């Protein structure tokens, strides 16, 4: 199934779980926020949220400079 991550379609087999998907991309879920289909994913769901085909994810990091 296809999931869009930061505007890029990626193919996944099965139904991935958000926390595992992030870790497979080398991303520590504690250091990012995720927007899914235009809404922010609650911290309670960050690990276990099961993704579905067509989900659009944006990985959000705070902007640094000042």
């Amino acid at each position: 199934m296809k999931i869009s991550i930061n505007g890029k379609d990626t193919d996944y087999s099965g139904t991935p779980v958000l926390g595992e998907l992030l870790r497979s991309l080398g991303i520590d879920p504690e250091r990012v926020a995720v927007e899914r289909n235009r809404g922010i994913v609650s911290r309670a769901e960050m690990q276990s949220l099961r993704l579905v085909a067509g989900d659009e994810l944006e990985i959000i990091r705070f902007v640094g400079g000042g």
Partner: protein
Amino acid sequence: MISNSPDRYARHEMLHEIGAAGQRKLSQSSVLIVGCGALGGFQAELLARAGVGRLRIVDPDIVELHNLHRQILYMENDAESKVLKVEAAAKRLAQVNSGVVVETRPVRFNAQDAQSLLAGVDIVLDASDNFETRYLLNDVCIKSQTPWVYGGVVGTSGMVMPVLPGLRGPCLRCVIPAPPEPGTVPTADTLGVLNCAVAVIASLQTTLAMRVLLGNPPAEIGLFHANVWNMSFDFLKVQRNDLCPCCGLGGFEFLDAPV
């Protein structure tokens, strides 16, 4: 005296959002600005012109030539004479509005001094350039129930989020519990920064600060993101996390055990 002439704030007082009562409130308010570079300079200038009572500015750095394109408080001679930013800022702000008390603290915002740097202020504006400081600010502000406004800018983009502990709103760590690994985040030094993006982000932070000071904070709290160059603007509503390590569970690891 010009500094307290009734005409001075007339165009702000005409706004129903501020009014004469609001202007009086601003004149009795104290604001801490953490960092006095790009964001902090715009914030300080706007707040001084708006007639806040007291500005406390914290920054250990000196003015450098490559600051001038975006750090509006500083002049060429400040860079030439390598003066402390807080000193140059205080001089400029006294010219902008001699009625504002400006307190300078030429130090890096740090865990040991955090609580005394916050003493007596009504709100804190983040104008720092690193996440060690921001997560520390979040800790000390949640602990002392002081509102603060996160802001960051790099490249042509920036972000803003107000943290309002008194209203039980989400804090920085409700959104992202842990700071990024040091060295992984682009900064003005590594990526550059558009001066217009600085102005937009600092202006939004300052607007939020005024609203909080006037007792009219926004009803919805969230993360505002702008790419100024692309004219794209985004608002993501954020919920408080009851299990947040800071505001939910009451841990202040950045304040208590600084790395």
